[in-house]
């Protein structure tokens, strides 16, 4: 498989290079754009470490930085890549990775319609905001709504190597678009422990499918979308069975998400709601001889958020959001199986480069906390608060 990918990549590069040598050089690498951003966030949390080591102290752990380049390689063939640095806590280390790097080619383009493909490492276009979730200037608040855009498995779930077919048709300023993305997810070993609770010792992306359809305008009127996303991973698991520990190196884990999104935008206000139905399960072949036990850790959760945003002026805006996740299970929910977060925030943009933000969250539940940053016990308080302040700059 690796040889096939290497051959495909070499062929593309050879064709591009031979064309480059023969062609008029002025046609190559036009419209080059460089962009960059950096942010630093201060977080204080009352009882837990949330996106930082901030339990009962002020933490400056969370920073983000990105460097983006895009160019028109030749004619309609474009290339875009982003190097992203992000640190959410000491336990996560300094995370520097190629977030995406892909070629895009529209093979049919008219005044109102485009059909094309993208090839390479692509950010999943999950929900309304996953593609730009790491850029402070395109978010509503400092923390994304954790119900839908959870940070526990951000790298493992949201970036993948593969091929995406896309198409859209414009109806005046409304756009109907569809895309389908076949890929291999890029697993992040730091996030292995977050994926499920069977002590996995290895995590490798296997295959993934994303299909999305959307309609509307980004800033005037309704915008709606539906996303189906099913990434699968190979995992090595070990778990206790009686007095023994059972191990399986051929286990697999899958997650299946269906997100329905709806947003309404007007000149000075916006309302956004997204609903997620999330199924997950670990298949363990070694348990094949035991009826009904081949699949472990199976379940599903329902999550949604509703958010209102008001723009007072070109510089000032505020938002109010309710964010909820509950696991479906035939008993009362434990604290780490739910997340109810009411949060409010404000932002100030003195000019197009600088951004200052603050927000406060009142949370019941622990299900979106990073397990690698927290030690959970049955006596913990499920009600807690966190306050954040962020300064960001973009070039």
């Amino acid at each position, binding site marked *: 498989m690796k040889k096939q990918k290497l051959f495909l990549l070499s062929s593309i590069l050879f064709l591009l290079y031979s064309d480059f040598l023969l062609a008029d050089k002025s046609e190559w690498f036009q*419209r080059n*754009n460089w*962009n960059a*951003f950096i942010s630093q966030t201060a977080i204080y949390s009352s009882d837990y470490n949330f996106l930082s080591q901030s339990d009962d102290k002020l933490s400056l752990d969370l920073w983000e930085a*990105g460097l*983006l380049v*895009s160019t028109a390689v030749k004619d309609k063939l474009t290339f*875009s*890549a*982003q190097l992203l640095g992000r640190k959410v806590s000491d336990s996560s280390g300094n995370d520097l990775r190629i977030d*995406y790097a*892909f070629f*895009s080619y529209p093979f049919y*383009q*008219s*005044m*109102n319609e*485009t059909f094309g493909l993208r090839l390479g490492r692509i*950010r999943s*276009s999950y929900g309304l905001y996953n*593609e*730009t979730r*790491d*850029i402070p*200037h*395109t978010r509503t608040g400092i923390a994304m709504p954790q119900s839908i855009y959870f940070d526990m498995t951000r790298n493992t779930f949201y970036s993948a190597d593969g091929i995406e077919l896309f198409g859209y048709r*414009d109806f*005046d*300023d409304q*756009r109907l678009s569809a895309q389908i993305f076949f890929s291999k997810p890029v697993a992040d070993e730091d996030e292995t422990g977050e994926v499920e609770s069977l002590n996995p010792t290895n995590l490798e992306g296997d295959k993934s499918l994303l299909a999305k359809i959307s309609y509307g*305008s*980004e*800033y*005037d009127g309704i915008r709606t979308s539906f996303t189906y996303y099913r990434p699968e991973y190979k995992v090595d698991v070990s778990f206790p069975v009686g007095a023994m520990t059972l191990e399986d190196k051929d286990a697999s884990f899958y997650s299946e998400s269906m997100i329905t999104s709806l947003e309404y*935008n007007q*000149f*000075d206000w916006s309302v956004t709601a997204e609903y997620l139905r999330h199924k997950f399960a670990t298949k363990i072949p070694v348990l094949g001889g035991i009826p009904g036990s081949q699949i472990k850790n199976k379940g599903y959760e329902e999550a949604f958020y509703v958010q209102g945003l008001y*723009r007072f002026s*070109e510089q000032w805006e505020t938002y109010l959001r309710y964010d909820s996740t509950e696991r479906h299970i035939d008993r009362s929910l434990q604290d780490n199986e739910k997340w109810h977060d009411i949060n409010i925030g404000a932002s100030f*943009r003195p*000019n*197009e480069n600088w951004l200052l933000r603050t927000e406060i969250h009142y949370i019941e539940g622990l299900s979106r906390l990073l397990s690698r940053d927290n030690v959970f016990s049955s006596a913990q308080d499920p009600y807690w608060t966190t306050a954040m302040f962020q300064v960001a700059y*973009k070039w």
Partner: protein
Amino acid sequence: MTKLKRTFLITVLVLSSLLSMTSLAATLNVIANASVEESHLKLKDLRSIYTMKKSLWSNGDRIAVFVLSADNATHKEFCRKLLKVFPRQLESVWYRLVYSGTGEKPVSVNSEEEMIELVAKTPGAIGYIRSETMHEETKVISIK
């Protein structure tokens, strides 16, 4: 104040505000390179062009979009009065395209003189100015 005086005062105020609106609309011009075949655009088309959705003219030429810097008064007026959007909302749309790697933002210029010069020499270009000064290689696009 007599009833007649009050009526006169209100009439003057209404007329002057109407005149000032007409004056704003008259001085803010959408311009394009002379190669562009279109002589008028629907407001929805202009919005599609400035949100970088519409990328081709009707003859298949690529649209090259130019904007003034975000703090420029003409840019603010163009966004708020013509597109009916905060400049920052428009920026968010552009940065979502740019930072997802799926599109480009418009080319930003520093002055109306530079805008006229670049629109004049770039085939398929579109921009906007408040001044009456035009270049022979540019044309005014009316917005319906």
